C-alpha cells in the first residue's frame, strides 16, 4: 500500500478497529449457525459464506489488498485459478472413474 501521512494512518487504524469488531460479530454468527441445527447442506453453505466474508475482510483491510498494486492482483488471480483446478480436478477424475464403472 501507499505510505501515507499521520492522518491517513489514523484513518487506517479506525478501519482496523471496525474490521476487528465485524470479525468478532461474524465469529459469533459462525458458532450461532451451528447451534441453529439447520440441515447439513444449508449449514455448510451458510458457514462457508460467513467464512468467505471474514476472509475477505482480513485480506482487503489487514493485508491491504483494497489498495494494492496491479501485479499483486494478477498473482492472486492466477493463484485462485490454480486453487480451483486443484480443488476440482481430483473430484472430476473420481466422477469419471464412477462413470466408467
Amino acid at each position, binding site marked *: 500500500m501507499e505510505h501515507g501521512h499521520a492522518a491517513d494512518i489514523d484513518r487506517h487504524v479506525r478501519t482496523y478497529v471496525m474490521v476487528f469488531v465485524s470479525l468478532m460479530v461474524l*465469529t459469533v454468527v459462525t458458532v450461532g449457525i451451528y447451534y441453529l441445527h439447520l440441515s447439513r447442506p444449508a449449514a455448510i453453505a451458510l458457514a462457508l459464506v460467513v467464512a468467505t466474508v471474514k476472509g475477505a475482510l482480513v485480506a482487503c483491510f*489487514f493485508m491491504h489488498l483494497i489498495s494494492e498494486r496491479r501485479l499483486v492482483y494478477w498473482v492472486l488471480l492466477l493463484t485462485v485459478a490454480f486453487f480451483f483446478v486443484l480443488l476440482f480436478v481430483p*473430484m472430476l477424475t473420481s466422477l469419471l472413474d464412477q462413470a466408467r464403472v
Partner: protein
Amino acid sequence: MEIPYTVEARPDTGLTSGKIGIWLFLASEVMLFGALFATYIMLRVGAPEWPVGASILNVPLATLNTIVLITSSVTMVMAWASLMRRDLSKARMFLWATVALGGAFMVIKAIEYNAKFEHHLYPSESTFLAIYFTLTGLHAFHVLAGMVVNAYFAGPGSRQWHTNPQWLTNRVEHAGLFWHFVDLVWIFLFPVLYLL
C-alpha cells in the same frame, strides 16, 4: 552487495522486492493448504459417513482460539501502523503482544490435542482425525514460524530502526501479511473441521 528495491518500489512493478516476494510465497502457501483442503473434500465425499466435528472436538476452545488469532491480527497491523507513525517502542509492544497471542493459541491447541490423546484419539483412529491433525498441525507449525519472525522483529531485528527505518517498516508489513494469511486459513479451518 546491497539488496535492490527494499525501500523504493521498482519502477516497472510499483512494488518493493520484499512485497512481491512475500505475495509469491503466499501464493505457494495457498496451493499447499489448497491441496489439503481438496484432500479433505475427497475424503469426506468418498466416506460412507462423516462425523460432525463438534461431536469429537472442543468447540468452545476452538472459538476462543479464533478470537485469540483475530485479536493477534489486529495487534500485528497496529505494530505496522505504529512504525508508520515513527513510534518504535509502541510497535515493539504490539509485536510482543502478537507473539504472546500466538503463544496463547499454541497453548490452547496443545490442551485440545492433549485431551484427544488422553481419550486415545490419534490420527490413526479415523479418517476424520487423520485430516484434522494434518490440517491443524500444519497450521500450528505456521503459527510457530510466524511467532519466531515476529519475535525477531520485536527483539534483535528492531535495531534496524536506527539505520534504515523504512526498510524495517516494510519488513514488518511483510511479516504481517504472512501472519494475516495464517489467520485467514484458521477462519476457514474452524467451521470446516469443528462445525460442519
